[in-house]
Structure formats: structure tokens, C-alpha cells
């Protein structure tokens, strides 16, 4: 059996990689951008120039505005303002269904802030793929499992694991691509394995619900209660009652949470006597998510329940989840996540590219041509389409109706157009053309960051210039002679 093991695993690596590679490329790239989700939202909101914000005052302003304008919504969900994201991000239901908008930290109102999904677009796309529930999440979960499988089989396929770490032979065609692929894989291997597994964990309840089904036998409410004993669910009473003064509730929560502060606030049944306010502590001193939760009675402000997570299995789950979403991460760690994410994106890209490079002699085969064309469309087209999102966001007039929806439609229109272009155009021409387009789009993002006053604009411009330089380099390399495919 030993004789067959490595070839079998290599075969599995190649095939699981090629089947899920394009989807994973888009998932990993959007996930990498999601590391800077609040910063991207801020970049797309040039009106938000305030540097420091009092989180509690911003929350109070948001609650006051929602009480006046969204009292019909069955619930409100708030991500509180932080130094990274100096605005309250609110999620509520209006006559058009659920909407998510940043609220001004002083007025508590979304008016005056342009309608954009900001960084939330990449974050949602990363695991929902713009598909209806649950299909996008299922697909993303399966893709995460496939990534884990491809990584493990890749380690087995890789014969000289540590020796090759110091090997890079540029300009030698297939050999160079394999060297690059190996190097990218080994250099951030712990990150790759961690992010693939924890990514699957975040969606696990969707495709491995069976243990909970077997033990709870359909008692969803009971399971929800056990999962977080401080999450109180009670039906609307029908009797109106205003919320208790919010500053006192915030003060109590801050005292209980200590220096981690309040990260999330849910108000269920606002304006009703059965209103419940649930606050979740921040992530600054714990990797795991939802480590501390408190529920308040809406009309009185009395504490209904408090829960500090100490149960080993749930804590393991929360820590794995927390490792993936990295809300705990201080600045340096966040940059490491971003760079490692780019390395994983490049790992997948080089892997896809190797498929065609190693089959260059079978250039006339339909499958090789199909893979080559999809490679151009996805590897060069996805970054170009994602960069165009930033441009569209700056170009569309601020007051446009359904502006947020229009932005996202533009991204998919551009992405689709690039995929069609890559499908029709000769491959060796399409590579430099779309890569040049991606470079130009990134350079334009740097220009549109003007006047570079805010930190996010300056940092965004620097990243965009670095990416533009990389795409220019790639475009030049790809237009060199003697390239067959």
C-alpha cells in the first residue's frame, strides 16, 4: 500500500484543487480583504472624518434615532463604535426589509452618510457568495473542507518538505511555478491549516447539525438557550413601553465587562413591554467570541441573565471561531492575517496555474483550454473586479437611490464581463490585458484615496500602489515570449 500512497494523495490534491480552486480563490481573496472590513467601510464613507468617538455616546445616539425611526422593526442589532470603526453599524428592518447602515456617531442617523455596504460586501461574499441562504454558506463550508483536504494531501505530495523551503529556481517554467507553489504553501502552513479548519468550524452547524439534532430532537429554543444561557427569548406582549434610559444600562454593562467593553448590542421587541437588550463583551482579552453576555429587561433596565463562558467544548468552539474572525487581533496580528491571506490566495493561484503549465504539451485538449481560460478569468479577473468595487464606490453620486445595491451589481457585471472576455480572447493575450486592467484599477484606487488625510485613505493608497506594482510585474512577465498557454 505504501507504494501507492503518495501518488494517490498527489492525485487527490490535484483534483480537489482544480475542482474547488476558482471558488476558493474568490473566497480567500474576499476573506483576506475582510480582515480590514471596518477600514474599508470607513474608506468608502469619506464623510466620516472624526478621529475619536465616544462609543457609549454613539450608541445612545443610535438608540435614540432607531427609537424614533425604526420602532416597527422586530429587532435592532448594533456593532458599537470602536477606534477602528468610529461609527455604529446598525442592522434593522424597514419597509424594504432588513437594512444595514453605519450611523453617524453624533446624530445617530444614517442620513448624510452615503448608502454603501463598504467592507461588509467582502465579508458577506466570503461565506455567502451572494447566494440565497443556505446555499452560499453550504458551498463555502464545503469549499473550506476541500481546502483542508487539499492542504493535507498537498503536504503528503510534497516530497522534500524542508529542503525545498530554500529552493526557488526562477525563469524555468513549470519548475519555477512548482517552487513558488511549494514555498507559498510551506511559508504560512500553520495559518493555511488553521484558517481552513476554523473556516469550516464557523459553518459547521449547517452541515454537521446531526449531533445537536440527535440530542435536542428538534427543541431549537432549548438548544439556543443552552448555547448561550444569557440569550433570553420572549414573544412580543403587544403592550407598548419605552426603553429604560440607555446610559444607565450601558454603564452597568461596562462595569460588568471591564476593559474589553461592549462589542455588540441586540434589542429585541423594541418599544414593547417584552423588550430584551442583550450585550456581548468585546474580544480584546480573549480569542474566543461571545465570552461574556448580559441580558437586560428593556423597560426597566434590570439584569435578566448574565453568562460568562467557561464550558470546555463550547469554549473550544468559540476560540476556533474567534481565531477565524480575528476580532481579538491587535494591529500587528491583523496585518499578519492579511499577508498570510494574500499568500494563501497566491498559493491557490499558482496551484491552478500549475495545472495548465504541466499540461502545456496537451494544449489542444478541451479541458486544458477550459482550465486556462477560467484561470485568466478568475486569477486576474477577481482582483480587477474587487478593485473596481472601490472605484465604483467613489464614482457613484452620494445621494443615488439604492446606491449600495448598484455598487454590488457593478462588481458582478465587471467580473462577469472579464470572465466572458477571458473565455473568448486568446489566453496568452488575455493574461497581460486583464492583469494590466487590475494594475490600472489598483492605481486608480490609490488616486481616489485623495486627499489622503485620514489614516485609512493613506494606508489604502499604499496597499493599492503595492498591488498595482505587483499586477504590473505579473502583466509584463505574462507577456514574455515562448509562452504557449
Amino acid at each position, binding site marked *: *500500500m505504501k507504494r*501507492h*500512497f503518495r501518488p*494517490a*494523495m498527489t*492525485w*487527490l490534491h490535484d483534483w480537489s484543487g482544480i475542482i474547488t480552486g476558482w471558488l476558493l480563490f474568490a473566497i480567500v481573496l474576499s476573506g483576506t480583504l475582510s480582515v480590514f472590513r471596518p477600514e474599508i467601510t470607513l474608506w468608502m464613507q469619506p464623510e466620516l472624518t472624526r478621529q475619536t468617538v465616544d462609543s457609549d455616546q454613539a450608541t445612545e445616539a443610535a438608540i435614540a434615532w432607531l427609537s424614533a425611526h425604526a420602532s416597527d422593526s422586530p429587532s435592532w442589532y448594533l456593532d458599537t463604535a470602536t477606534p477602528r470603526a468610529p461609527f455604529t453599524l446598525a442592522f434593522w428592518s424597514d419597509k424594504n426589509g432588513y437594512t444595514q447602515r453605519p450611523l453617524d456617531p453624533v446624530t445617530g442617523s444614517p442620513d448624510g452618510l452615503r448608502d454603501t455596504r463598504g467592507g461588509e460586501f467582502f465579508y458577506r461574499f466570503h461565506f455567502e457568495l451572494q447566494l440565497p441562504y443556505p446555499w452560499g454558506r453550504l458551498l463555502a463550508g464545503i469549499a473550506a*473542507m476541500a481546502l*483542508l*483536504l487539499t492542504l*493535507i*494531501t498537498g503536504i503528503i505530495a510534497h516530497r522534500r518538505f524542508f529542503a525545498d523551503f530554500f529552493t526557488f529556481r526562477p525563469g524555468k517554467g513549470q519548475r519555477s511555478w512548482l517552487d513558488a507553489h511549494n514555498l507559498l504553501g510551506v511559508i504560512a502552513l500553520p495559518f493555511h491549516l488553521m484558517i481552513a*479548519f476554523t473556516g*469550516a*468550524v464557523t459553518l*459547521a*452547524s449547517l452541515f*454537521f*447539525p*446531526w*449531533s*445537536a439534532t*440527535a*440530542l*435536542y430532537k428538534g427543541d431549537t429554543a432549548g*438548544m439556543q438557550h*443552552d*448555547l448561550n444561557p444569557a440569550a433570553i427569548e420572549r414573544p412580543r406582549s403587544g403592550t407598548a413601553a419605552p426603553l429604560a434610559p440607555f446610559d444607565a444600562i450601558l454603564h452597568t454593562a461596562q462595569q460588568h465587562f471591564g476593559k474589553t467593553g461592549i462589542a455588540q448590542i441586540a434589542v429585541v421587541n423594541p418599544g414593547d413591554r417584552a423588550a430584551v437588550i442583550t450585550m456581548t463583551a468585546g474580544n480584546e482579552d480573549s480569542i474566543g467570541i461571545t465570552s461574556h453576555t448580559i441580558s437586560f429587561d428593556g423597560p426597566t433596565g434590570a439584569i435578566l441573565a448574565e453568562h460568562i463562558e467557561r*464550558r*470546555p*467544548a*463550547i469554549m*473550544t*468552539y468559540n476560540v*476556533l471561531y474567534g481565531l477565524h474572525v480575528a476580532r481579538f487581533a491587535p494591529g500587528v496580528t491583523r496585518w499578519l492575517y492579511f499577508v498570510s491571506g494574500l499568500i494563501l490566495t497566491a498559493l491557490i493561484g499558482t496551484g491552478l496555474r500549475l495545472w495548465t503549465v504541466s499540461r502545456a504539451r496537451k494544449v489542444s485538449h478541451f479541458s486544458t483550454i477550459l482550465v486556462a481560460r477560467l484561470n485568466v478569468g478568475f486569477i486576474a479577473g477577481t482582483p480587477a473586479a474587487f478593485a473596481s468595487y472601490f472605484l465604483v464606490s467613489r464614482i457613484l453620486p452620494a445621494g443615488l437611490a439604492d446606491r449600495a445595491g448598484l455598487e454590488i451589481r457593478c462588481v458582478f457585471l465587471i467580473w462577469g464581463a472579464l470572465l466572458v472576455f477571458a473565455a473568448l480572447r486568446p489566453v496568452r493575450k488575455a493574461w497581460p490585458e486583464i492583469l494590466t486592467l487590475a494594475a490600472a484599477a489598483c492605481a486608480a484606487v490609490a488616486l481616489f484615496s485623495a486627499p489622503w488625510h485620514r489614516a485609512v485613505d493613506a494606508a489604502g493608497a499604499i496597499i493599492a500602489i503595492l498591488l498595482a506594482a505587483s499586477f504590473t510585474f505579473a502583466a509584463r512577465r505574462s507577456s514574455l515570449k515562448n509562452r504557449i498557454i
Partner: protein
Amino acid sequence: MATTRYRSDIAIRTLTGIAGGYLLAALLSVAIARWLPLPRIEASAAGMLAGLLAWPPLMMTAFAIHSLPRLCAGFALAGALLAVLSFWPV
């Protein structure tokens, strides 16, 4: 013809790995959840994570074992054992 045989071999292994592997992983998650002496929510979470960890190695096993009959027998046996553990009335 060798290619037909090769293709059916691949097809059976893929099906065994994906569907059979998923089924075994799901049964494992239920069996663990039912027999761990922990509160319900803890046991559910532990079982779910175990299932998640089990699926990729099972997929690899479907391609690592050279003899197809032995592979299918092994998966069937493991499935039967886990099914008994999962559905045994307690």
C-alpha cells in the same frame, strides 16, 4: 478497456469518500455526542467538531486503500458499528 475500469474505480472512490465519508463523519458526531458524559450542548459541540475533523481523513482513506472491495467493506463495517452506537436505545 482499462480506462473504463479506471474511471469506474475513481467514481466509486469519489462517492465513497464524499458521501460515505460524510455519512461516517455524521454518525461519528452523533455517537460521540450520545456517549460523552457531558451536558447536552457540550456533547453536541464536541461531536460536531469531531465530525468535522473526521471527514477529510476519511476522504483520503477512500483513495489510499488500494483494494476497492476492502475499502468498501471497511467503510460499511465502520458505518454499521457507528450506527449501532448512534441509535442504541439508552
